[in-house]
């Protein structure tokens, strides 16, 4: 056992050296037209060696370290712990949630513009993750191309505003419905697929949409993207300094206040907040309805579900369609927030991040997904100084989470249903 561990640790350390020494230990320097290879300075080499030693020691004592990690008590202990009365717990929960939403409504008026902007982004990710949660967490369909529906929503608004002058409020339902339609269309070919195969096909679909957007230059502007996407209006009031469209008035003039760029940012934040809350409420309702239970039944045991008369086609397509619908929602808000979109924003990494949020939060759990969306979006911003190592930190955090709490931050709780005894 010990010898085995030692060999493994040595192997890992050597791999670390082989990988990191050539990458970090050498510099390419351009001198005129020729490129020369120079060794890095000693301190770097020492660091590389040190890293190898750390890897060696970690692998050698891995069992002890992992054991220690597991024994750290979770911040949210196992759910069975306090058998609080179900209805009381539900009441407290709904009060707390209402409180958070009310706080979130007033919060932007007291903080900086940058913070509000970031919070809007968080809310967009909340919407996306809640939508993907339907597909992955509830229906158990591993979808790696979810960002495609987000792109459909965003581009629908961008193109409609560019070619038809359609406003945000018109584009919002159109974008969401179009994304839902794409979800439905993608659903058909993958009906029979499960697990890995489904993941690969959806991944491909996501890439197809992105490549299409990139290459269909005549319509989408290709890699240059589409700019000048209008901001949302409030009952025909615009938030710009000058009114862009005939017939509209401007917000600051109507209310007789000085123009401030912050108005627009806060307004967008509030829209995103309302939409995110609506998304959460609708999906929460779905989870308590026959559709929601059918999704879960299909995830749990497809054969049993079919033997009870559930049609696999209907259940899977509804999950894809509804998930895509909310991605379309999020996409429209995103396009409006950025004012400019390009295929850059809809790469596979986005799908991966949204999926990471769902997994981190705890599959199927709405509160967990919201928390994870906040964490995953804000932490990288806080750690701006380490921007070079962002993905590294992100990866390490994921690994730690999977070891420490594989079921996610807040695993899904079953809904308690009171029954009356029948005579």
């Amino acid at each position: 056992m010990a010898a085995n561990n030692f060999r493994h640790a040595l192997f890992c350390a050597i791999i670390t050296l082989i990988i990191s020494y050539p990458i970090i230990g050498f510099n390419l320097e351009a001198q005129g037209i020729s490129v020369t290879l120079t060794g890095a300075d000693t301190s770097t080499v020492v660091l590389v060696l040190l890293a190898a030693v750390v890897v060696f020691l970690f692998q050698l004592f891995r069992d002890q370290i992992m054991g220690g990690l597991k024994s750290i008590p979770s911040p949210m202990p196992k759910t069975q712990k306090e058998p609080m009365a179900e209805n009381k717990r539900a009441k407290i929960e709904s009060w707390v949630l209402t409180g958070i939403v009310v706080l979130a409504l007033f919060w932007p008026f007291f903080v900086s513009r940058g913070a509000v902007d970031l919070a809007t982004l968080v809310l967009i990710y909340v919407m996306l993750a809640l939508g993907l949660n339907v597909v992955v967490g509830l229906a158990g369909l591993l979808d790696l191309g979810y960002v495609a529906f987000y792109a459909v929503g965003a581009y629908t608004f961008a193109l409609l505003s560019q070619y038809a002058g359609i406003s945000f409020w018109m584009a919002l339902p159109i974008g969401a419905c179009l994304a839902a339609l794409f979800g439905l269309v993608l659903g058909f070919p993958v009906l029979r697929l499960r697990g890995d195969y489904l993941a690969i096909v959806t991944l491909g679909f996501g890439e197809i949409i992105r490549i299409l957007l990139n290459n269909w230059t005549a319509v989408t502007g290709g890699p240059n993207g589409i700019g000048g996407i209008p901001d949302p209006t409030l009952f025909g009031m615009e938030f710009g300094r000058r009114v862009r469209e005939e017939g509209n008035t401007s917000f600051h003039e109507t209310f007789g206040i000085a123009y401030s760029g912050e108005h627009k940012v806060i307004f967008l934040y509030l829209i995103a907040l309302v939409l995110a809350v609506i998304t959460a409420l609708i999906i929460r309702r779905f989870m308590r309805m026959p559709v929601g239970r059918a999704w879960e039944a299909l995830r749990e045991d497809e054969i049993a579900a079919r033997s009870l008369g559930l049609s696999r086609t209907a259940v899977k397509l509804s999950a894809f369609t509804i998930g895509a619908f909310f991605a379309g929602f999020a996409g429209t808000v995103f396009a409006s927030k950025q004012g400019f979109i390009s295929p850059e924003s809809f790469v596979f990494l986005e799908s991966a991040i949204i999926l990471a949020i769902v997994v981190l939060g705890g599959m199927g759990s709405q509160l967990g997904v919201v928390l994870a969306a906040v964490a995953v979006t804000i932490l990288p911003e806080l750690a701006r100084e380490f921007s070079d190592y962002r993905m590294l930190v992100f990866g390490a955090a994921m690994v730690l989470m999977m070891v420490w709490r594989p079921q996610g931050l807040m695993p899904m709780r079953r809904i308690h249903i009171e029954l009356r005894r029948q005579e």
Partner: protein
Amino acid sequence: MLEVQNLSMRFGGLLAVDQVSLDVQEHEIVSIIGPNGAGKTTVFNCISGFYKPTGGKILFEGNEVQGKPDYKISRLGMVRTFQHVRLFGQMTVVENLLVAQHRHLNTNLISGLIKTPDYRERERKSLDRAAYWLDRVGLLELANREAGNLAYGQQRRLEIARCMVTEPKLLMLDEPAAGLNPAETKDLNQLIVSLKEDYNVSVLLIEHDMSLVMDISDRITVINQGRPLAAGTPDEVRQNDDVIKAYLGEA
């Protein structure tokens, strides 16, 4: 009500079911018995639409159903349990029963979102039906437990309750007594008889427990290596030489 005529099912070179015929009348318990690997479960899979039979006809209430998709067959009023219990393990016990009742519920998305009176009414009814059947199989106290955490015998009973809330005409049970202790088997015996007597459900049963089979069956079909061996009342089957030989040969 159910009539199976010359059913055959071939897997590549293996003829798992060969020209099997049987029928179930209303208000009747019919059993299929046979040694391991005889093809009993395969017959079930053909009837319930999981397999498309390679030959023969299956008539349910006079209509041909062979080759129809499984979910449509179950909607006709034929539901089954599985040899290896298949519950929705992470869902609660009630939720398992609610999933089964999706057809009694109003599945219109909008009416569910805004909770129309009709939707509430149907929801209440299906909850009552779930409560009734949970009480009937003795699981009411465990209604909000995760189904996967139940004891084995309880899981078996839940699977039957899950079929019953769909209000079937024909219930197909694949080895319901497997893994049960004698007391549980006795309860099961009474439950199956009561399903027939009190709820007017016909039962098609696969079972290895001979005392159970002989006790409750109206008729028995014996299959051996995919081929029908004998059929008749329990007494006739018990005295059939071929059956005795097949079973002694097995043991």
